[in-house]
């Protein structure tokens, strides 16, 4: 009896905002990478604002609400957050979560069983590619690390690094990208001198860097800056175990400069998913981002905008906020054929869809054409410190 009552109350709460379209947005607002996530969340809000300013959803101009939750870059927290979004808030779809571990966990145990479409904005683990099991419910707007690991290996080769030690944090994202890197690097003729996992969030990594430091001057570090990456790098510098560092986007943060000091990081290069800033959609994105004060070229920020914008387009094309069949519409609005739509052009897209036409969204982060696994191709950049700040350069 009590349970029925609870369910009814939950249903009532969910239907309280019936006139609006609700999209759940679990983001790692706390946890190991809050610095990276804050501008991403701002980009999601900006997409919703653009949509609401240009006529809102459907013919009657319903408001698009972003229901934010904290996934803390932690699988357990993400499952809690998404369960609440789906069951209590009754959201139509999920945009987020940010880290690969939580994205996989929430998809496997919550959103896929509930039949809810997810677009992750920054989960780049190769493990995400094959996990949907034919349901076609998990998409992402950032390229898989299967590509970034290769880009990083090419970068190491280009910098004449012929032997390297690998240290990766024991989680879904970092373990997967390090595996791709090791394979690609060895395939190109490089030597991996040691390859060890490290446990995130330890107070000291001196023994780890000592063991690895015996084997090579160079370290490939796969870690989140906020859960041990900075400490590991500091320990490596303190003990002079390594001189050169390369790594992926988990480490690319101003926090690293702030804490370790630019003068100590002259030999560090990190790659990240990047946008080709010469394309017309990027120019359209940069214009609206600059106007709103959102950092247009920060990691995953255009990807976040694209994810939210495309999700709204898919719901608009579906004509209702039902959860079913959304992925078909998502594929339709994001790929050819159709009129090209760039970031911010909600009113145009809405008019074409209302007239029964086709659209093809191209975003700031790339063309966002999903393959059969819901993955996109992407570009990468490498960042080194110039004048005390990270300077990114697109890898061709």
């Amino acid at each position, binding site marked *: 009896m009590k349970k029925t009552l609870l369910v009814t109350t939950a249903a009532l709460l969910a239907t309280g905002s019936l006139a609006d379209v609700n999209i759940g947005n679990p983001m790692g607002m706390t946890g190991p990478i809050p*610095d990276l996530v804050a501008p991403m969340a701002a980009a999601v809000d900006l997409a919703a604002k653009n949509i609401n300013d240009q006529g809102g959803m459907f013919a009657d101009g319903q408001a698009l609400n972003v229901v934010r939750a904290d996934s803390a870059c932690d699988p357990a927290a993400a499952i809690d957050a998404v369960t609440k979004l789906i069951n209590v808030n009754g959201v139509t779809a999920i945009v987020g979560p940010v880290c690969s571990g939580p994205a996989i966990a929430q998809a496997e145990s919550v959103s896929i069983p509930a039949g809810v479409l997810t677009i992750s904005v920054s989960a780049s683990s190769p493990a995400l590619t094959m996990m949907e099991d034919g349901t076609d419910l998990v998409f992402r707007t950032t390229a898989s690390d299967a590509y970034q690991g290769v880009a990083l290996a090419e970068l190491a080769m280009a910098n004449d690094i012929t032997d390297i030690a690998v240290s990766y944090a024991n989680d879904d994202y970092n373990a997967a990208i390090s595996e791709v890197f090791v394979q690609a690097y060895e395939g190109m003729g490089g030597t991996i001198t040691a390859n060890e996992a490290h446990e995130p969030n330890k107070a000291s990594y001196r023994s780890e860097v000592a063991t690895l430091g015996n084997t090579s001057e160079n370290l490939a570090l796969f870690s989140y800056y906020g859960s041990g990456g900075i400490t590991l790098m500091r320990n490596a510098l303190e003990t002079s175990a390594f001189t050169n560092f390369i790594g992926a986007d988990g480490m690319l943060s101003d926090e690293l400069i702030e*804490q370790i000091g630019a003068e100590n990081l002259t030999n560090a290069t990190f790659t990240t998913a990047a946008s080709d800033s010469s394309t017309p959609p990027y120019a359209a994105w940069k214009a609206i981002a600059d106007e709103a004060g959102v950092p247009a070229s920060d990691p995953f920020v255009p990807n976040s905008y694209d994810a939210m914008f495309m999700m709204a387009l898919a719901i608009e094309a579906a004509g209702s906020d039902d959860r079913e069949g959304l992925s078909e519409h998502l594929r339709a609005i994001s790929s050819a054929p159709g009129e090209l739509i760039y970031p911010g052009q909600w009113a145009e897209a809405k008019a074409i869809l209302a007239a029964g036409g086709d659209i093809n969204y191209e975003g700031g982060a790339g063309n966002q054409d999903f393959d059969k696994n819901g993955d996109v191709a992407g570009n990468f950049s490498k960042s080194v410190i110039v004048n005390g700040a990270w300077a990114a350069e697109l890898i061709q």
Partner: protein
Amino acid sequence: MWDAFGFEFVNFYLIPGLVLGCIYALGAIGITLTFSILRFANFAHGEIMMSGAYLSWTVMAIAGYAGLTLHPLVAMVPAALLVILLFLGTDKFFYKPFRNSETIKVVMASFGMMLIIRSAVQVIWGPNQLTFVRGIAKPNPVLSDLSSDLGMMLIIPNKHLFIFAGTIIIVIALSYLLNQTRIGKAMRAVSDSPDLAHVTGIDVDKVIRATWIVGGICATAAGVFLVMDVQMLETTMGFRMLLPMFAAAILGGIGKPYGAVFGGLVIGLAEELSAYPWIGDAPLLSPGYKTGVAFAIMVVMLIVRPQGLFKGRSF
């Protein structure tokens, strides 16, 4: 005997293990005292450590505005006072009402306190990491010169020397308190049997306050030493230390402060030394499983000798 092998072992495994052990030890003292005198596992202890570190950071920042550069060990003093107030306040409002009910209630209350304190810190200081000391720590030059003249190269940064010295001073002060003073003896009496202690005229409430004060000082010291070592503040850092500290307290024997110190050092050393290449060139145990070592020790201890190494209470 002092070759490259010994150099690496001492500087990169033994000393970091001892540093970690000191931090675990100080935290475990508070846990073991609360466990024996108040008879519950205080889950909020890690967050208290963390808030102590944040308060010290704030004291240093305020002094920085006034043009003063405070050493963390100095900033620790006002921070410890605030932490003691926090401890006494939580005891008064959250733990005392449950003192005569089942233990599980007060354990849950402490679990709630843990979440409340962490959220409050996130609200006040934000969820982002804060820099405690910028840059990288160079080894103490005097010590490395002196030791290399003697044929062994010790590379220990100043922060570690402060941590060792601070821990030794606190443990000596604690042993004086427990063995030589009236309140210390009363604490030990309450730990052995609260009812008997009450009958002999010991003021149990006063003993409980003293427990929180001692625990608060040790927790603040542990928190500050931790941030001195990692040089940054983060809101979940206390929680991450909590379980190894419990392992240390259980290893040493519940209610035995010396046991907690010993247990802390053993857990800290075991975590670091398990990654040493004892056999061949590869680490004995992949460093990814370091944390598991602490719990393996704890589980084996609970099965083989539940009262702990120093014959504490068994449950």
